C-alpha cells in the first residue's frame, strides 16, 4: 500500500497543480508485450506501436489509463469500432492492464507515411485548438493524461475520423466531453485540427 500511495504522490507532482488521483498498481509491461505478440496487435498497430495503416491509430505512448479504459469499452461492446470489440473478447482485466502498460511504455512516433505540412491548414488548426482549449484536457503539448489520450503525432486521418465520430454522436467514451467539445464544428475545421495535431 505504501508504495502505491507514493506512486500517486509522484503522479500528483508530475501534473503540478492537479489534485492527485487514486493510488493504483500498474500493469505488467513484459506480460503485455508477450500478449500483444500472441494476439498479433502489431499487424494492425505497428511493431513498435506506431501504425503504418490508414484509419488504425498508433498506440505507443498513450496514457495507460486511456488504453485500459478503451479496451474495456471494446470488450463490453460499449465502443462500437470494428474490429476491436471482437479483438477484445476473452481478455481478462489484468491482461488488459498489461497490454496498456506495454503500449504506454513505447516511444511515441510519427507515421512513416505522414504527409508534408500545409502551413495554412496548420495555422488554422493551431488557432482552433487555442479557441476550443484542446490543450487544457489533453495538456498543452497534447501528450494526454489518465483517461485523456495523447493526440500529438497521431495519424491524421484517424484523428479526423475520431473527431467526426464524436461530433456526429457515433463515438462515446467514458464521458461525453469530446462530443460536446466538437459539437457543430464543420468538417473543414476538424480536418485542420487533425492536420495540426498530426504535425506536432
Amino acid at each position, binding site marked *: *500500500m505504501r508504495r*502505491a*500511495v507514493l506512486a*500517486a*504522490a509522484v503522479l*500528483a507532482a508530475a*501534473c503540478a*497543480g*492537479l*489534485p*492527485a*488521483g*487514486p*493510488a*493504483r*498498481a500498474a500493469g505488467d509491461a513484459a506480460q503485455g508485450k508477450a500478449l500483444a505478440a500472441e494476439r498479433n496487435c502489431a499487424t494492425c498497430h505497428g511493431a513498435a506501436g506506431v501504425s503504418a495503416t490508414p484509419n488504425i491509430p498508433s498506440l505507443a505512448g498513450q496514457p495507460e*489509463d486511456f488504453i*485500459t*479504459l478503451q479496451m*474495456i*469499452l471494446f470488450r*463490453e*461492446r*460499449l465502443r462500437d469500432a470494428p474490429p476491436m470489440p471482437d479483438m477484445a473478447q476473452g481478455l481478462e*482485466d*489484468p491482461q*488488459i*492492464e498489461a497490454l496498456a502498460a506495454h503500449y504506454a511504455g513505447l516511444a511515441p512516433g510519427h507515421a512513416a507515411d505522414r504527409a508534408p505540412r500545409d502551413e495554412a491548414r496548420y495555422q488554422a488548426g493551431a488557432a482552433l485548438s487555442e479557441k476550443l*482549449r484542446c490543450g*487544457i*484536457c489533453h495538456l498543452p503539448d497534447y501528450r494526454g493524461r*489518465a*483517461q485523456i489520450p495523447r493526440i500529438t503525432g497521431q495519424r491524421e486521418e484517424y484523428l479526423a475520423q475520431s473527431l467526426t465520430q464524436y*461530433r*456526429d*454522436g*457515433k463515438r462515446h467514451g*467514458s*464521458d*461525453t*466531453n469530446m*462530443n*460536446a*467539445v466538437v*459539437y*457543430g464544428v464543420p468538417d473543414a475545421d476538424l480536418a485542420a485540427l487533425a492536420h495540426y495535431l498530426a504535425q506536432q
Partner: protein
Amino acid sequence: MKPGLLALAAVSLSFAAAAQQAPVPGWQQGRPESQAASPLAPNAPKLTVTPVDQLPVGRLTLPAGFKAEVHAHGMPGARMMAVGANGTLFVGTRTIGRVYAVTMEGGQQKVRTIASGLTQPNGIAFRDGALYVVAINKVLRFDGIEGKLDAPGTPVDLTAAFALPPEEHHGWKFMTFGPDGKLYMQVGAPCNICLVDENRHALLLRYNPDGTGREVVARGVRNSVGMAHHPVTGQLWFTNNGRDWAGEDEPEDTLGVVQKVGEHFGFPFCHMGSMQDPEMKGRECSEFSAPALRLGPHTAALGMRFYTGDMFPAEYKNSMFIARHGSWNRTQRSGYDVVRVSLDAQGKATMHPFLGGLLDGNAFLGRPTDVQQLPDGSLLVSDEQMGAIYRISYAR
C-alpha cells in the same frame, strides 16, 4: 433527414436546456472565464478489477466498536445497491454498463454479471421478486430474478411507459420504492447550471411500478443520487449535489426533506436555501424551500438510507447514513467518506463523521457511493473506484 443529421439533432437536444449558449461539456458549463485554465476536471473512472490485497479496507476509520471487512470485490464500478427477498445483493454501475448480483455460496460471496452493455444502469430497486433497473432513458424489469441469476433472460422493457428524458448529463438514476409502493427517482438538470423546464428536469418523481401515474414530488433539485423514506414519518429525504465553479467552499451539497408534494428547492436560482446564483437571476431564495442540512462543499453526497437495524448502538436507530463520493471541483479534496445524520425530537438534523480514512493528503484511496443495510443490521458501503463492497459491523 440523413442519419448523421439525426444524430446531430439528438446531440443538440441534450444541450437544448443550455438555451442559446454554445454547448460545452456539462461539467465545464458555468465555469467563469477567469477559471478557463483550471486543471480541475472530473476524476477518471477505474473499470478494471482491483485485487483484493489492494483494497483500502485496512485504512478505513470508524467509531469505537465498529469494524470494516471486505464483503464482495472484483466488481468494477460498483455503485447503487438493493437487496432481494432471498438475500441477493444487486449492484448497479455507470460507465461499465453492468448490473451485478452477489450471493453467498459455499461460505463465499459469489459475484455474477447479470446485465451488461447498458448505458449507465445506476438505478436499481427490488420489489415482489422483480429487479428494476434504470439506465439512461431505459427502464427494465427482471421478474423472478433470484431464481434465474445464471440466465436472467430478456427483461420486460418499461422504457416507453416511463418516458424519461434522453440526456446523458445527470441522466443516470437513483431509484427506491416508497412506503406507498411507488417507484421514486430523480431527473437531474442536464447541465452544471442552466435554466430548465420545471416539469422535465431537476425533479424528484414518483411512478406506479409499471411506469404509469408520473407525479412530480419536488422541483428545483439539481441532481439527487440518494433518497430514502423516513421509517416512522414516511417523509422523503434526499441528497442533492450543488453546482460547480461557483467557489471552492460554496455552494454546499445538501440534505432535504419533502414537506409538501411539488415544493421547489430553488435550482437554478438559489442554492442551499441561501445562496443566490451568480448567473441565474430573477427569483429570490425567499421563494423556495430550504434544505434540512448542508453536507459540505463539492462532497458529492450520493447514496443514503435510514438505519433501522438493532446491531448498532441505540442512538443510530432511524438516523441516516450518507455516502460522500468525493469532490473534483475543489483544490483540496472533500468528502470521500460516509457520514451519519441524526434527527432530534424537533427534527433538527446533525451530521457526525462515520467512515473515513480514504484521503491520503490530497490523494484518494476509494470513493464511497452507496450504503445499504443488511437484515442482520450490518451496513454495506460500495466503493465505485475500487469495485468493492465493505461490510461494517458493530460489537460492544
